[in-house]
């Protein structure tokens, strides 16, 4: 089943924080996060694996809550370059094909 992302869209001012959630109705093994700018290809951000880990680079981090079957992407002190659509992709097992959510559109205002 397709994971559910929330919110569908968010508008922030530069410097504000954002949280994007990705929830699944089934148990998860992996969660992928990608960012796509308008007219471009999705770009890989990070993968989180079963075990409830957290990951991050620069001011973008994510958590994986295995029990709740969800992941959250955190963007702190957002920059204009963070604008775009963020997709999560989930795999129920190691052998699963990744299923992508519908995306969350993030728009950062100066």
């Amino acid at each position, binding site marked *: 089943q*397709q994971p559910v992302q929330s919110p569908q869209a968010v508008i922030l001012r530069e410097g504000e924080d954002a949280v994007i959630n990705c929830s699944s109705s089934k148990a998860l*093994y*992996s969660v*992928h996060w*990608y960012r796509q700018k308008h007219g*471009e*290809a*999705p*770009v*890989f951000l990070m*993968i989180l*694996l079963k075990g409830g880990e957290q990951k991050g680079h620069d001011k973008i981090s994510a958590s994986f809550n295995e029990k709740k079957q969800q992941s959250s992407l955190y963007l702190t002190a957002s920059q204009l370059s963070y604008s775009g659509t963020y*997709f999560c*992709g989930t*795999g129920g*097992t*190691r*052998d*699963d*094909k*990744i*299923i*992508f*959510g*519908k*995306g969350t559109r993030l728009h950062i205002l100066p």
Partner: protein
Amino acid sequence: DAGITQSPRHKVTETGTPVTLRCHQTENHRYMYWYRQDPGHGLRLIHYSYGVKDTDKGEVSDGYSVSRSKTEDFLLTLESATSSQTSVYFCATTRSVYSNQPQHFGDGTRLSIL
């Protein structure tokens, strides 16, 4: 990145004509995927390949066929294009089939069927 080139980048064609999209990769990744992206749907898997001549269907495979005669090339064919197949098509590759591997995407092909 994984050196993925899609061609053509844009195409306009008429209903009922066959269309072939090409994905070429230079990283020797064994696994390749075709997705379509439509507003409100995200990325949906059409077909994938786990090696030369080895392909399988994804969730939205009706009306599409694929072929992979070389590791580096994965072709997507719309046998008789319909307006519902107007979309942006992305090719992706992974080093292994496991869901703990990142997907590397090409720049996409914008296909319009009139």
